[in-house]
C-alpha cells in the first residue's frame, strides 16, 4: 500500500480515479479507454509539476518518505555478489550501518551505507538508521580494509543523524565521528559518497568525506534538521518549514553552492515510486565517476581531495 504525503494527495486522487475507471471498464464492458488515457496524461503532467515545484520543506519530507528506497533496496540492483561484513571488532555490530564487499560491474568495491528500517521490528533493529559509535568504527574498519586491498569505497548516506543516547556518549560518539572524518580524508583509494535520502549532519558526514559527493534529486543534506533548527532559532518546532527554507539543504541548493559534484536525477515520480529507475541513474553516475577516479594515482587523488577540503568555506577579508 503506497503512502502519499499531503502535497502528493492530488496524485493519489487521480491514481485511484484511473484505477476505478479501469476496473469499471472491465466490469461493464463500456469503452472508456479514451477517458482513462486523458486522465493518465493529466496525471503525468501533474506528477511532473508537483515534484518539479516542490518547496524545500516538501523535499525535506520526500527525502524521508516512508516509501523511499533504503540502502539495502538498492544493493541488489547496483551490485553483484554482496557479502556483508559485521562488527567493529571491539564492542558490537551496529545494524544502523551496513557494509561489506561487493562487485560493481565486475570491480571489487567496499560499500557502506546507513540503513533505516521498513517495518517496526526492523526499525528497532536498525535504530531508525541512527548509528552508534560502533557503527562508525565498523565503517572505518571497512574503509581501512578497502585501502589495504586497493579497492574503491562507495558510501550511501541516509540518516537523521548519529544516535543521541547515553550509551553512544559513553562509548565516544564524538571520537568515532571525528576519527572517520580524519581517516577518510587520507584514505589512499577513491571514495564516492551519495546521499540517497536524509543527510543528517555529523552522523551523515562520518561516512561522507571523499573524492566525489552526489545527491539524488529529492534528498537533503543539512547541518541540522529543520525541526531542530526551528526549536533553537524560533524556539518552536512549528517553524520547521521556515527553517527548511533558511537552511537551503536541497540537492539543488548545494550544487549552487558548489558543495556537491552533481545531482542524480530521479524518475518523474521520484525514487519512492520507481526503485529500478532510480537505481539506473545512480549506476550511471557512479560508473562514470569511478572510471574517472580509478585513473588517478593515489598521490594525485589525495592531493585533490585535500584541496577540495582546504578551500571549502565562504568568508570575507578586511
Amino acid at each position, binding site marked *: 500500500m503506497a503512502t502519499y504525503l499531503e502535497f502528493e494527495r492530488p496524485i493519489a486522487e487521480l491514481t485511484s480515479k484511473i484505477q476505478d475507471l479501469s476496473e469499471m471498464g472491465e466490469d461493464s464492458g463500456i469503452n472508456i479507454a479514451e477517458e482513462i488515457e486523458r486522465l493518465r496524461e493529466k496525471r503525468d503532467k501533474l506528477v511532473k509539476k508537483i515534484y518539479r515545484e516542490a518547496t524545500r520543506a516538501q523535499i525535506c519530507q520526500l527525502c524521508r518518505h516512508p516509501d523511499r528506497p533504503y540502502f539495502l533496496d538498492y544493493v541488489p540492483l547496483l551490485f553483484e555478489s554482496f557479502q556483508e561484513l559485521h562488527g567493529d571488532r571491539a564492542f558490537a555490530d551496529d545494524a544502523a550501518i551496513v557494509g561489506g564487499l561487493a562487485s560493481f560491474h565486475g570491480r571489487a568495491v567496499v560499500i557502506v551505507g546507513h540503513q533505516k528500517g521498513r517495518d517496526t521490528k526492523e526499525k528497532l533493529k536498525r535504530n531508525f538508521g541512527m548509528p552508534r559509535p560502533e557503527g562508525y568504527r565498523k565503517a572505518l574498519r571497512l574503509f581501512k580494509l578497502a585501502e589495504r586491498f586497493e579497492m574503491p569505497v562507495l558510501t550511501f548516506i541516509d540518516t537523521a543523524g548519529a544516535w543521541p543516547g547515553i550509551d553512544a556518549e559513553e562509548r565516544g560518539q564524538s571520537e568515532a565521528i571525528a576519527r572517520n572524518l580524519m581517516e577518510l580524508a587520507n584514505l589512499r583509494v577513491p571514495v564516492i559518497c551519495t546521499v540517497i535520502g536524509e543527510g543528517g549532519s*555529523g552522523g551523515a558526514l562520518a561516512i561522507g568525506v571523499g573524492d566525489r559527493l552526489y545527491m539524488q534529486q529529492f534528498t537533503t543534506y543539512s547541518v541540522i534538521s529543520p525541526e531542530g533548527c526551528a526549536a533553537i532559532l524560533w524556539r518552536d518546532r512549528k517553524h520547521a518549514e521556515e527553517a527548511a527554507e533558511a537552511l537551503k539543504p536541497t540537492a539543488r541548493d548545494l550544487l549552487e553552492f558548489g558543495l556537491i559534484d552533481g545531482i542524480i536525477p530521479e524518475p518523474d515520480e521520484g525514487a519512492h515510486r520507481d526503485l529500478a529507475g532510480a537505481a539506473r541513474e545512480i549506476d550511471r553516475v557512479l560508473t562514470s565517476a569511478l572510471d574517472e577516479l580509478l585513473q588517478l594515482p593515489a598521490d594525485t587523488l589525495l592531493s585533490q581531495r585535500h584541496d577540495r577540503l582546504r578551500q571549502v568555506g565562504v568568508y570575507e577579508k578586511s
Partner: protein
Amino acid sequence: MSWITRLIEGPKKILSSRQAEMPEGIWIKCKGCGETIYNKEMQRHHMVCPKCGAHARISTKERARFLFDKNHWQEMDTELHSGDPLNFRDQKRYRDRLKEADKKSGTGDAVRNYVGAIHGLEVSSSMFEFSYMGGSMGSVVGEKIVRAMERAIDRHCPFLLVTASGGARMQEGMFSLMQMAKTSATVNRLRESGIPFVCLLTDPTMGGVSASVAWLGDVILAEPGALIGFAGPRVIQETVGETLPEGFQRSEFLLEHGLIDAIVDRREQRDYLHELLGKLNQKPYRH
C-alpha cells in the same frame, strides 16, 4: 630576528596583560558554590573559585593572559570575517546577529588565533570564544583553525586548540558542517609533519566541534567539570525519556570512560602544557 624579539620590538601589536579584559565589579558570585568572592582573588586563581574549584567561563584574551608568557603573545588572522552565503534569516538576520556578536565579544568571530610562548616554548594556538554566538563553528572558525595548524607546521611548533562551543553554526548551513571535514582533514598534515597537537576541552564543547577537530588531538585534556559531548543533554533526555545519570557528560565522566587523557586545573595548565609539549617535542629516538 626571532619572533619573540619581533613581538617585543613591535609594541603596537602587543597586548599587554593590563589591556586584556577584566570582568567588571569588585565581587563575583561563584556559579559553583554561590559564594561571593573578591574579583581580584578570582583573577589570581585564573577565574577558578578558590572555595569550590569551579572553573568559570573566560574569554580567549583572559586565557591567553593566563597561559602565555607576559608580553609574549600576539593575535593572528584578525582580517577574517564571516560572510553570509545562505542569506540566512530566522527571527533575526544572520548579518545582524554577527554585528551584535562583534559588539559583545569583539570582531574576532568565535575563534581567536594566537602565537604565544609558554615558559619560552612557542605554540600556535586557536581558542574558541564562547561568548561569540556560542562558539559556533562556521567558515571563519574552520579557516582560522586550519591556518593555525598550518602556522604550527611552518614554524615547527606545537598546535594547541582550546575549545568552547555549542557546535556547528546553523546560519551557514552546510558550509558549517563541511568545516568539520576541513579541520579534521588538516590534522593529517600535523601528524605527517610530526607536530604535537594538544586539545584542551573547556565548558562547553558539544556537537560538530566535539565530533571533529576537538577529539583528534594527540593528547586530549579537559578542565574540571566541563560539559563535553556529542548530543546536548536536553536532546538525549528527550530521545531516551529517562533521567540522565549524575555527572553525565562532565569531564570526570569522560575520564572514567576512557575518552580523554587527563583533567587539568586551569591554575596548573601553564606548567602542565610546558612539560607535556617539551616531552612531545624532544624526539630522543629521531633518526
